[in-house]
């Protein structure tokens, strides 16, 4: 078997295969669809980030700083909606997953390439509907669209709701595609427990995507029916029940937070193993915990409603189940740390993101315990404590893993290496900026500062100021990260096939891969048997050790 070692940027590869914009817009190649998703999703991240900076600027002073109350309410709604529905939920599966999943399987493409393209265009249509609402009277309901506020405010709720409804279908189609691909396209020698952990996590994610997202669709349809046709479902003025909406909404949106975090955990498993240059610790526990999380996450939605008047028994059950779902997450963290033990830890940029993830997600998960316990949640819910908690999990967890994955697979996607020093500097700024922005929010939340406040009591001003400064440091970090990646596109060194020494199959092909992914069908082995790979100075990367060589050491 021959495994390519070199760079294919100047030969036939998926980027050169087919020319012109039509060859992109009508492509069925999962890699090109992944790249289109990547660009769109990063654009959404930029948009959401601009809204975030505007929100933080307004909060610099306790009274009006730069905008009026209604504009502020629209800004935080658009920030949340863009980040959640356009960036975090589709981010890892649709962009990175799309590119990597078939490669990791040693397959030519996903099971349904046309469905894949359709899912991308549904994303675009959904995003357009959501953005149109900005022009036609930006929504001010918060990303949660709670009734009866959302059925009575006179902003364009219909357009954005319809947009999110369509985005849901995009997500369902990606989920179906991944499940079928994993079942049908795995090579015969890749048994379930020989699958890379990223695939396990995408599988768990896909299960939630196809089972939970339809509930969101139904909820939003009911909301539309009430708003457009006056059918009383949630609005008590029409004989409806406002709390029913919250049940429906969180029945999707809690599992959705695991749509966000599971694939992130998958990426972290890959990064920690690769850059510890050692077999992942506790493979089976990590794999099964993904599935456990996916299943239990359906049963905890009520923890968002502890103060909305649920029965005591319901509260008890939701609280206990919430704590149960924390266990598999904790197990993964311990396993990642143990993977570094007796390894050979290399602090490359993706590993810095992985370490940042352990630190930040640790805080995010542990502060979830304060919210899972009933008595403390009553005090903390709907305060900045919750805001800080979910930023530590979604940003410190998911977004950080996404960027770690982006820097990890960048050489594979583009065929170029980036400037390691700049990339590390950016990761460092992001880490510092993030903590500055959000650590202070735990304190003011515990002190009682409610969320979604345009004006606030002067005693909270110092915390808000620190948080705003942090947000701008964070922004500088991202600008530097973006500059580093863009710079690499035209000035980066050519990437070898396997720059990091990872053993999963996407590194068994040239960077960037050819149109059909592999010149010769790769033979899957243990995805974490990194010792087969040795560094080869001539190739500039890792190559398979000659058979019989003992381990990967020179």
């Amino acid at each position, binding site marked *: 078997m021959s495994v390519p070692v070199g760079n294919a940027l100047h030969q036939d590869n998926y980027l050169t295969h087919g020319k012109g914009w039509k060859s992109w817009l009508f492509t069925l190649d999962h890699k090109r669809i992944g790249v289109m998703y990547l660009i769109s999703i990063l654009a959404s991240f930029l948009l959401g980030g601009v809204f975030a900076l505007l929100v933080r600027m307004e909060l610099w002073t306790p009274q009006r700083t730069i905008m009026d109350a209604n504009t502020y309410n629209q800004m935080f709604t658009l920030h949340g909606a863009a980040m959640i529905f356009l960036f975090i939920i589709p981010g890892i599966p649709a962009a990175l997953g799309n590119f990597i999943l078939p490669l990791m399987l040693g397959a030519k493409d996903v099971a349904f390439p046309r469905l894949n393209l359709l899912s991308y265009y549904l994303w675009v249509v959904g995003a357009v509907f959501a953005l149109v609402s900005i022009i036609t009277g930006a929504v001010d309901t918060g990303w949660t669209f709670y009734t009866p506020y959302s059925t009575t405010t006179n902003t364009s709720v219909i357009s954005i709701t319809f947009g999110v409804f369509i985005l849901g279908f995009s997500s369902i189609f990606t989920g179906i595609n991944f499940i079928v691909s994993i079942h049908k396209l795995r090579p015969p020698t890749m048994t379930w427990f020989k699958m890379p952990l990223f695939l396990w996590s995408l599988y768990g994610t896909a299960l939630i995507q196809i089972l939970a997202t339809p509930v969101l669709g139904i909820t939003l349809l009911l909301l539309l029916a009430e708003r457009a046709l006056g059918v009383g479902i949630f609005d008590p003025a029409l004989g409806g029940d406002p709390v029913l909406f919250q049940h429906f909404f969180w029945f999707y949106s809690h599992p959705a937070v695991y749509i966000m975090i599971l694939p992130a955990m998958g990426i972290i498993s890959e990064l920690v193993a690769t850059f510890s240059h050692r077999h992942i610790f506790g493979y089976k526990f990590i794999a099964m915990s993904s599935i456990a999380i996916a299943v239990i996450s359906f049963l905890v939605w009520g923890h968002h409603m502890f103060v909305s008047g649920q029965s005591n028994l319901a509260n008890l059950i939701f609280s206990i189940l919430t704590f149960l779902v924390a266990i598999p997450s904790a197990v993964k963290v311990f396993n990642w740390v143990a993977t570094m033990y007796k390894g050979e830890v290399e602090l490359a940029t993706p590993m810095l993101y992985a370490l940042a993830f352990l630190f930040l997600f640790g805080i995010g998960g542990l502060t979830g315990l304060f919210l899972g316990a009933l*008595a403390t949640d*009553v005090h903390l819910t709907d305060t900045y404590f919750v805001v800080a908690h979910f930023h530590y999990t979604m940003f410190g967890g998911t977004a950080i893993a996404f960027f770690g994955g982006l820097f990890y697979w960048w050489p594979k996607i583009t065929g170029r290496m980036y400037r390691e020093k700049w990339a590390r500097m950016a990761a460092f700024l992001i880490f510092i900026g993030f903590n500055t922005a959000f650590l202070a929010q735990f304190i003011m939340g515990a002190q009682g500062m409610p969320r979604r406040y345009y004006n606030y009591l002067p005693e909270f001003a110092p915390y808000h100021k620190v948080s705003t400064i942090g947000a701008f440091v964070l922004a500088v970090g991202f600008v530097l990260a973006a500059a580093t990646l863009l710079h690499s596109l035209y000035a980066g060194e050519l990437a070898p096939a396997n720059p990091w020494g990872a053993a999963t199959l996407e590194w068994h092909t040239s960077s960037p891969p050819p149109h059909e992914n592999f010149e010769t069908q790769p033979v899957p082995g243990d995805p974490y048997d990194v010792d087969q790979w040795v560094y080869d100075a001539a190739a500039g990367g890792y190559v398979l050790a000659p058979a019989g060589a003992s381990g990967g050491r020179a």
Partner: protein
Amino acid sequence: MKSWLLGAERGFMLPVQASSVAPAVDALFKFIFWVSAFFFLLIVGLMLFFVVRFRRRPGYQKPTEAPSHNTFLEITWSVIPLVLVMIMGFWGFKVFLDLNTPPANAYEVQVTGQKWKWLFTYPNGHVDETLHVPVDQPVRLVMTSEDVIHSFFVPAFRVKRDVVPGRYTKLWFRATKVGTYPVFCAEYCGTGHSDMLTTVEVHEPGGFERWLEAASNLLNTLPPAEAGRRLYQTRGCAQCHSVDGTGGIGPTLKGLYGHPVVLRGGNRVTADENYIRESILEPMAKVVAGFDPVMPTYKGRLKDQEITALVAFLKTLASEDKGPAEQGRE
């Protein structure tokens, strides 16, 4: 360090404890805090230690016998956290039951949330925009909303409860410390959400009764115009009407009394006592030109004597100059 960080009185993280449940809530908060701090330091500590100890460097060879799993270890570190979080879960539930079960002898106050203010109705019918309660006596709030969902939140008492239209939700507390504490609306409700603030004033023994007596008898203890001014503020008129000539949902009340008013349809009337009285009790009878008929009727909500006081207050505004936003008036 412990009390500085988490605060028995007013600490770095938690606000003053001013209710009977606050110490129990804070005790649980502290338990979770220290458990979390322990695990966080353990994880980050080990992580940094491994990074330094096993980092790739010239001359370093990784050991060959690194384990790829260890079932005993993995079960241990699943079970220990499991036990700890179950303790948190049941402890949280136990305190929540106290927090959620009012004693039978609680003093009851009706609470109405509306965009964007709170109204508190005491058993004797007195209505106020701030909450007053006696110290060391259980108080039960029966709450409802007139429009969208709000949430009644007193950080110092560690209590919060959604206030939902079309149903009654309940909340109770026993204040333990005399003082004045902020009350927030914690569920997003639109433009004025962050201004939907009021205070709860905890009175020393006997003080609450004195306050309620005086507040309910404003009309007998204050000059009518002054009582009218208070009513203007506490009964919601200020929501829609200014007294300084600026615009609002309703016309400014400045310079109204004794001046002619143009009504919808073109008729004119002079704003005398009877017109004002009618405007308050039957707002739809004569609607001012240029305004929507959105003023609620105060029939049955204001007593005759209170209306008289409001009229007396409006009279004091009559002499001054007219403001810019006066519409429909000459």
